[in-house]
């Protein structure tokens, strides 16, 4: 026994000599932690504390009472020791049976350890995908400065004006010193969650609860508190955020109670109370200038929690929470609770089957996911019919869209054409527009397609008139409208932007079609409402910018009821909201019409400047150097190049339409080059007939005809007929004989001539055949060449004008025709 004890103590000492904190997490650097964990996984002769506590609860019975210390011993295969120990308690046991039992014990411990290792691995995999925002792990990130900078860098001026989200402004404040004691008590509470036990003769620590607490309150304690509360309760509490009632009970509605997932729903009320105390002590006076959607962030405070090197406390304007920067350890399933084993496989009651399209976040597992976290959703004011989307789409939150998303343009995307992104270059020029009607004193100049003439008039609501043939768009501004003149100017200037590149006398909004009317009115109102929101007019209500724009567009498209939003569920509520809006938009300090025109708002100046074209030679463009603005410039340049820079305005080679603009230039008639040039059909060639036999017969015939005879067969019979002389003899025999010889000679000569000529005859006949064969082909070929020559010649005779073609031609074209 003593030997064993010595041996065991030596073993324990050696174990103790292992690097300190072998079972402690979060000691040292990340590398050390990872190394510990890997070693931990490989070790299979020391079990974790939860397993150590769990195994005896499961396996122990009267026959073999298992104690916690037996677990490690079994893992180390010290079955003899285990059996001795058990024998001491219950008396003699069969060695083999006991050994078998010890093996079971070790097997159980090993399996549980494997499960836990798997859980940890999954957690590590998930963690590796969620580093901090800038990609470096374990580093602090000053979100307060980086987020606004990023948005500023990327946004263009038009984005700023048209984006219906009033930007979330963030303020960074210092934590007051009064929270220090609370921080300390939080540290203490957290430290107390570490279970340290000595059972089994080794000191083991269990961080399960600590990890669970960090996971639970990572999104803030108020969010935890909002769980399980109905919408009405939430609304009631929201009404008075200052007296946000704190309520917690340790058993408050843990949906996982009794299961091995109970840590996921557990609440630590003392922790929550301390966090609530901290929240109450925040300097509320510094929140005054913040809008309801703005937030204030405080620097994170490191927590000195044993076993976790990177635990922090984060504080925001509306919530407090604790955070573990590098979550290496997951919330592992609970193995034991208060002396009873928690057997897995027990699930809570299945949730009710949700209605269609309403269900993804009702599932207990899905509920914990990122997509199902609590979202701050825009208030959907117009509670009309249900949002009717695609059946197979997963919809987390939706509001019915307002106006038609279709924007019609004359040609091309019209990038950055609504809203202002440029800064004024020539203020003098812009100042020429006086509050009175300026008429022809203004002119678009070479750098713009239009110029705006703002003037004051006593009408209800602003009005934009048709562009005149000189390019002037008259705009009447009034003081009798729901918005004050500054915003009316912005609204009407957007209308001017819609008109600027269209032909003169184009109707802006003929109010013939509901969708067109909405589309034409919605965007200007959106920009104007955004402007009012930026100026803080909408702060007194919770009407969103889109809602403002939609309601005002309804107003403008008066030919239809609720033209742009559709009929609301509750007309009275709609009216009430409309009145609310009108009330909010009233501003006693609003400038008069003349003032508004004379001292144009910066945004209006920017919009006016953006009426000019970007890419005409000799025209300056000035803008704030953000990525978005640069993209606006490049995009407009490309569009103008494609649409305007061409040899003949109105004729774009990149589109298939003809005569894109009705005021097209003085183009010459189609010269009809080579219209009547006919290319000869390539008919089949033919071989002329070669009648060889006939030719030879011809020759024979000739031979015989030369001698006055018909064709005889064989032709040699024609060669000589002695009857000629013999039937007509001469006076003397001698002369007759001589004449016979000469007759023969004469005929031979002729025959010989013919025979010697046969080669020539054959050649000539052959070349004639060849010529016949070629003649047709050569004729067609020469016609082809003639066609080619005609093409070439007529091509060269194309006349080019010496005067550039006009863009708007209203006069006669004679000077452009040659």
């Amino acid at each position, binding site marked *: 026994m003593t030997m064993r004890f010595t041996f065991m103590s030596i073993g324990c000492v050696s174990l103790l000599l292992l690097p300190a904190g072998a079972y402690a997490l979060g000691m040292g650097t990340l590398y050390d932690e990872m190394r510990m964990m890997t070693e931990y996984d490989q070790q299979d002769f020391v079990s974790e504390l939860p397993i150590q506590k769990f195994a005896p609860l499961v396996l122990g019975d009267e026959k073999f009472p298992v104690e916690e210390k037996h677990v490690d011993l079994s893992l180390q295969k010290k079955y003899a020791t285990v059996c001795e120990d058990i024998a001491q308690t219950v008396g003699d046991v069969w060695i083999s049976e006991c050994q078998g039992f010890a093996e079971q014990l070790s097997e159980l411990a090993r399996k549980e350890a494997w499960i836990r290792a798997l859980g940890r691995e999954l957690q590590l995999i998930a963690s590796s995908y969620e580093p901090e925002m800038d990609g470096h792990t374990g580093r602090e990130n000053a979100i307060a400065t980086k987020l606004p900078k990023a948005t500023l860098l990327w946004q263009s001026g038009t984005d700023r004006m048209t984006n219906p989200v009033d930007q979330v402004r963030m303020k960074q404040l210092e934590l007051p010193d009064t929270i220090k004691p609370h921080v300390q008590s939080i540290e203490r509470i957290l430290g107390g969650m570490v279970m340290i036990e000595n059972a089994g003769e080794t000191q083991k620590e269990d961080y399960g609860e600590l990890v669970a607490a960090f996971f639970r309150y990572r999104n803030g304690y108020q969010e935890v508190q909002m769980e399980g509360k109905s919408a009405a309760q939430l609304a009631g509490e929201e009404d008075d955020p200052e007296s946000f009632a704190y309520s917690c009970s340790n058993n408050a509605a843990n949906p996982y109670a009794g299961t091995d997932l109970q840590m996921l729903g557990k609440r630590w009320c003392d922790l929550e109370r301390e966090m609530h105390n901290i929240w109450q002590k925040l300097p509320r006076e510094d929140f005054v200038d913040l809008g309801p959607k703005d937030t204030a962030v405080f620097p994170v405070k490191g927590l000195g929690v044993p076993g976790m090197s990177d635990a922090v406390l984060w504080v925001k304007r509306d919530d407090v929470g604790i955070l573990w920067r590098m979550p290496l350890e997951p919330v592992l399933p609970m193995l034991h609770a208060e002396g009873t084993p928690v057997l897995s496989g027990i699930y809570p009651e299945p949730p009710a089957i949700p209605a269609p399209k309403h269900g993804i976040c009702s599932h207990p597992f899905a509920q914990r996911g990122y997509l199902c976290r609590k979202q701050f959703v825009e208030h959907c004011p117009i509670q009309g019919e249900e949002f009717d989307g695609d059946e197979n789409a997963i919809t987390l939150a939706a509001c019915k869209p307002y106006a038609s998303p279709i924007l019609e343009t004359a040609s091309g995307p019209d990038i950055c054409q609504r809203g202002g992104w440029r800064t004024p270059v020539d203020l003098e020029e812009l100042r020429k527009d006086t509050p009175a009607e300026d008429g022809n004193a203004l002119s678009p100049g070479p750098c713009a397609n239009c110029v705006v003439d703002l003037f004051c008039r006593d009408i209800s609501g602003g009005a934009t008139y048709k562009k005149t043939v000189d390019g002037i768009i008259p705009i009447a501004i009034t003081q009798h409208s729901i918005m004050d003149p500054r915003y009316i100017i912005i609204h009407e200037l957007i209308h001017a932007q819609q008109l600027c590149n269209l032909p003169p006398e184009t109707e802006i909004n003929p109010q013939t079609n509901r969708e067109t009317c909405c589309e034409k009115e919605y965007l200007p109102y959106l920009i104007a409402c955004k402007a009012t929101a930026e100026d803080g007019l909408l702060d007194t209500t919770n009407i969103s910018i889109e809602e403002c724009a939609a309601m005002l567009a309804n107003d403008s498209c008066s030919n239809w009821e609720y033209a742009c939003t559709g009929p609301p569920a509750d007309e009275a509520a709609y009216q009430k909201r409309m009145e609310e809006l009108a009330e909010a938009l009233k501003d006693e300090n609003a400038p008069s019409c003349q003032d508004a025109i004379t001292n144009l708002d910066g945004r209006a100046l920017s919009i006016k400047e953006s009426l000019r074209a970007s890419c005409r*030679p000799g025209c300056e463009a000035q803008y704030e150097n953000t990525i978005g603005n640069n993209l606006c410039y490049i995009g407009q340049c490309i569009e103008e190049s494609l649409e305007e820079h061409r*040899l003949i305005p109105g004729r774009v080679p990149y589109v298939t339409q003809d005569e894109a603009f009705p005021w097209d230039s003085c183009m010459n008639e189609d010269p009809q080059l080579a219209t*009547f*040039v*006919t290319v000869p059909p390539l008919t089949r060639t033919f071989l002329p007939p070669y009648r060889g036999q006939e030719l030879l017969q*011809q*020759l024979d*015939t*000739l031979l015989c*005809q*030369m*001698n*006055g005879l018909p064709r005889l067969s064989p032709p040699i019979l024609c060669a000589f007929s002695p009857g*000629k*002389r013999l039937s*007509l*003899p*001469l*006076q003397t025999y001698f002369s007759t004989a001589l*004449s016979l010889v000469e*007759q023969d000679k*004469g*005929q031979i000569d002729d025959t010989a*001539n*013919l025979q*010697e*000529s*046969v*080669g*020539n*005859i054959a*050649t*000539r006949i*052959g*070349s*004639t055949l*060849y*010529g016949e064969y*070629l*003649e047709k082909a*050569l*004729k067609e*070929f*020469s*016609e082809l*060449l*003639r066609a*080619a*020559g*005609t093409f*070439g*010649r007529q*091509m*060269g*005779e*194309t006349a*080019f*004008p*010496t005067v*550039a073609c006009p863009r708007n031609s209203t006069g006669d074209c004679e000077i452009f025709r040659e």
Partner: protein
Amino acid sequence: MRTPFLLAIGFCLLSFTGEALAASCPSGVSATVLGITPVSSHYTKKAIERAEQGIQAAEAFSDVNLEVASLFFPWLSEVTGAIAELVDTELRVSQEERGFRESTPCLFADLLILEAEMEKVRCKLSSETLSSSSVNIGKIAYLKGVLRFLNERYRNLLAGANDPMYVDEGWHIVQIFEEPQQNAGGQEQPDPVCPFHSNYLPPTALGYGCDLEAMGNLRSIASVGEEYSSLETLLARKDEFLSNVANLKDIIMEMNAFTGNENPDMSHWGQARVHREKFGCIDSSETASQVTGKILKNALFKMGGTRMEKRGPFSFVKDEPTLAREFMEMRTYWGEVRPQADDFKYPDEFVADADQAKAEKREESLPFTERVMREFGRIFFRDWNIRQARKEAAIVAKASDPYLQLQRELAMVRKEMRVLAEVASKKDMGGRNLARKLAFFLRTTCLFRPCNTQLDAVLKFVLTDECFPYVDGSFEDTKPGVPKWHEVRCKQEAGL
């Protein structure tokens, strides 16, 4: 023995002509033929007239009693000899055989008339001599002269009917039966007479030749009548066709106007054919104005252009065998008349007077043997020339004809190629012109932008002629690996 034999021949001749001895002369076919007006009024008719005058003159001879002197006048042999002369194999058989193939009906008719006249004379001869109790030497002599005269005219007509250059040398010889004619107007040499008449030629589209008008009087001759009717049918068909396609002319002209093609010469479209005639000799002064006004045609006549027709009466396509044979004969004739070498020339064969004088001097001192040898030499070389000419003629067509035919076929291609070449290579035509104008036009819109450099380069290239060597073939002159001449040169000249 000889005389009865010849008498028998004479009878055979009578039977050979297929006529029975008739009381009046002539009879049968000949009589009808003699009633026909000859085609050629300047030659045949005149010949007939002269012959008739001769006959009249012969008739005028009164009967002369048989005198002693006349006993020694071999009158029978004279007669038979005269008739035997008519049996001229060379004329009657060879040339007439050829004439059968090549003569038109008009020529045939005229020849037939001459023959009929000869038959008349012969008949008179035979009736005078054989049926008369007395011998009229003068009449026989006159008739013999007329017969010989007619034979000669027959020969000349056969030889020269198609050849306006052929002059009847013997026309102006005063025959035995004629009075010497007074020279009128102090002419030294009477005008040459040629038997040529355009009516003897095959009918042409222009109006000449042995067409219906010319053959009109000759229809009583059976074969000519058949010829006439078939020609009439052919012409009727032709006129019907032309009337069917009468609208075509306007359509052709309109279409050519659309397509920019040239109109073919349609000045004679649908015109009625008017019969024209030309006859007699053609000399250089007359040819230019009378016939066509072009010197080319004159040469054609001189070389026998009318002597040979392109299509014989037996072929629609070119009558190659006949033409080739005629060509061979012509070349052989040229070989025959080729001048001898200087050593073998007679003094008068030299062209230049100085050479002639030298030769005459040499001639005086030439020994006899050398003269004889010279004769042999001349004969030898003449034969050699003839043989060589024949051999040459055999290959001339083979060597040159294909090329000439092809050249003719390619003429229209060459014309179009020339136009195309101009369009492709000239600076102010075609693609170059367009590129030049377009580049300039683009420059006016380019204005201070980088495209200016490119347009400048384009203009430089287009305006440099060395950069367009495609038509003069210089771009073919390359060796592999060596930069093309025109590329290097082009870059240099254009300054690129």
